[in-house]
């Protein structure tokens, strides 16, 4: 049950580029598993290795114990939904979907029944006679899924299947894919560089960077407990702090000294000892922002700063708050906007507070990852540096 599709030390280079660099992990049976990462991190290459279009330089790929690595694509029990759909332009929707069964030489009646079933699944019974050029992007996408599913693959590989669609349709198709996944019970290996897409449907996500897997976990794990600064910065927005542990408190907590700020309390699940340097992250929505000092609470950290920028986003507002040497992103949801919240404006003095459990200490940190977080131009530092 636990290990269905296994990658063991898989590597693949193109010339000097290490597209996939010693990747090992496994996907469970029936799982909706996503490969998430920035452009060029090797997601497509890894998927193509499973499909058999690329031969890894090293490592093995196993499916339910069977070694796939040396099988040609047409003998692998996996099917692919291509990013550009790759529907056969000279065949109708029906013939496209039937292709796999026809190649397998199945009897004509059976093919017709199976295709009808698929057409019902994607709700396109009335479009069956059309050519791919005559249907919309969303419909092409559904045909591509149906064509890949009709062979009953053990794993369905999807390479950014929604990338070519506009936002609304993308959200709709995502739900539809999720429904299809529930209905057919096939393992999905889903490639995307869109974190919201991956978060919303995946059972687990592998976050990739530079050909390596940075972290594997449920959406909640990778968001709430990122192991590295890369994962923290790539998924969602975040604030980074460098600090040193000064004291342990209450078994599970420690006190950190951070340059320019008063000492903060943090949950110490990494068992750091006094003197250890640590990298702390706090997600912007974990802050509570208020124009008055919050009531004292030993579990909460409080900082005082000045609002530098306010961006109203409809369902929430983003604040940029300047503290001594820090610039923090703060998201505040609106419940009863303007009624029980006193509006906060530019240059207002504000208090930020967060629960000690909401700060998270990273295992690995890389300065350059901080640049992945989108920030409005920092007026002070840019003027400083010129």
């Amino acid at each position, binding site marked *: 049950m636990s290990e269905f599709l296994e990658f063991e030390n898989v590597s693949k280079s193109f010339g000097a580029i290490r597209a996939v660099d010693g990747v090992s992990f496994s996907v469970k049976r029936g799982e909706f598993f996503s490969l998430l990462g920035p452009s060029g991190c090797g997601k497509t290459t890894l998927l193509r290795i499973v499909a058999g279009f690329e031969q890894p330089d090293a490592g093995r790929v196993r499916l339910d114990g069977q070694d796939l690595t040396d099988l040609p*694509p047409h003998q692998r029990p996996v099917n692919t939904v*291509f990013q550009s759909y790759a529907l056969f332009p000279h065949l109708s929707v029906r013939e496209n979907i039937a292709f796999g069964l026809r190649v397998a030489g199945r009897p004509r009646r059976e093919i017709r029944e199976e295709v009808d079933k698929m057409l019902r699944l994607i709700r396109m019974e009335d479009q069956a006679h059309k050519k791919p050029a005559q249907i919309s992007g969303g419909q092409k996408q559904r045909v591509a899924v149906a064509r890949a599913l009709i062979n009953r693959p053990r794993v369905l590989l999807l390479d950014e299947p929604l990338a070519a669609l506009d936002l609304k349709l993308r959200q709709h198709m995502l739900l539809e894919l999720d429904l299809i996944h529930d209905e057919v019970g096939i393992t999905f290996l889903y490639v995307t560089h869109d974190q919201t897409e991956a978060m919303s449907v995946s059972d687990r996500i592998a976050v990739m960077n530079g050909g390596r897997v940075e972290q594997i976990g449920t959406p909640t794990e990778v968001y709430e407990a990122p192991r590295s600064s890369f994962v923290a910065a790539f998924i969602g927005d975040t604030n980074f702090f460098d600090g040193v542990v000064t004291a342990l408190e209450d078994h599970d907590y420690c006190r950190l000294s951070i340059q320019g700020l008063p000492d903060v309390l943090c949950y110490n699940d990494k068992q750091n000892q006094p003197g250890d340097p640590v990298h702390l992250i706090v997600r912007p929505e974990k802050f509570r922002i208020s124009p008055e000092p919050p009531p004292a609470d030993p579990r909460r950290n409080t900082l005082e700063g000045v609002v530098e920028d306010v961006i109203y986003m409809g369902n929430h507002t983003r604040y940029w708050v300047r503290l001594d040497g820090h610039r923090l992103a703060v998201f505040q949801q609106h419940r009863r906007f303007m009624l029980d919240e006193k509006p906060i404006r530019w240059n207002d003095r504000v208090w930020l507070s967060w629960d000690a459990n909401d700060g998270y200490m990273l295992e690995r940190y890389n300065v350059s990852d901080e640049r992945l977080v989108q920030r409005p131009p920092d007026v002070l530092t840019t003027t400083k540096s010129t």
Partner: protein
Amino acid sequence: MKTAPSSVREPPARRPDRWRSHEWIVTLPSLGWLLALFIAPTLIVFSIAFKPADLFGGVGPGWTLDTLRSLGNPNYPAIVWRTLWLSLATTAVCLLVGIPCGYYLARAPIRWRNTLVMLTVVPFWTSFLVRIFAWKHLLHPEGPVRRVLTALGLCDSAATLLYNPGAVLLVMIYTYLPFAILPIYAAAEKFDYQLIEAATDLGATRWRAFRSVFLPGIRVAIFTAVLVVFIPCLGSFVIPDVVGGPSAEMIGNKIAQRAFSDRNLPHAAALSALLTLAVLAPLIVAWGARNRSGRRAVPVQEAS
């Protein structure tokens, strides 16, 4: 306020339809061109076939069916048959060689590709006649090909390489192969090879993917290649004249002979008309078949 939505929902003005009915105006120049340079000459040739010949190689007055009757010449069926099968065989071989060539040209690494395409068209830089005479030299009983083959024991000293239909076939294939390769290469270069990946992903072998996805994908180019090889083959007379000899005559030779040696224009015209009809007939059939399959709403080629 109420009228605004209804005016929005109104169907677009009927202008596009009117435009469509006048679209043919745009084709007038090409129609005129076709009329002046193809249809009119063809009709003239057809009509000359119904004229008597005069003694000076011209066309006499009045009308006659004599020329048509003289097409019953007992030599002709064999020549027509030879012309047809030589042309068909040339076309078949050109496709058989041209499709893989075009495919590999298109898939060659980009830095090789232009060089390879250049090599394909390099023969055109030498005069066609010179190349045909070169073949005559090559295939000559004292020529290098013959000597090499004999030395290797691949042909006996009695065999003739020249002056037979085989020689004509060989040289026609040599001549027309580039014309088959080029359109196929052009289409193969534009072909989306992810479709082949998709086919193999769905369980097709590489050969099956080539057959059911690549070939249909370049079918227009194949059609073009057939036309640009088959039609010139039907009318060729230099190649059979130089390397063919009397046992490998084609209609083209007869037309040339009637027009230049016998100075019998009507007879030449009748043979030409025959050739034109032979070219047009399959074209019209093919065109009709394409139209019919294009209009068919629900394709039934499920088990292809």
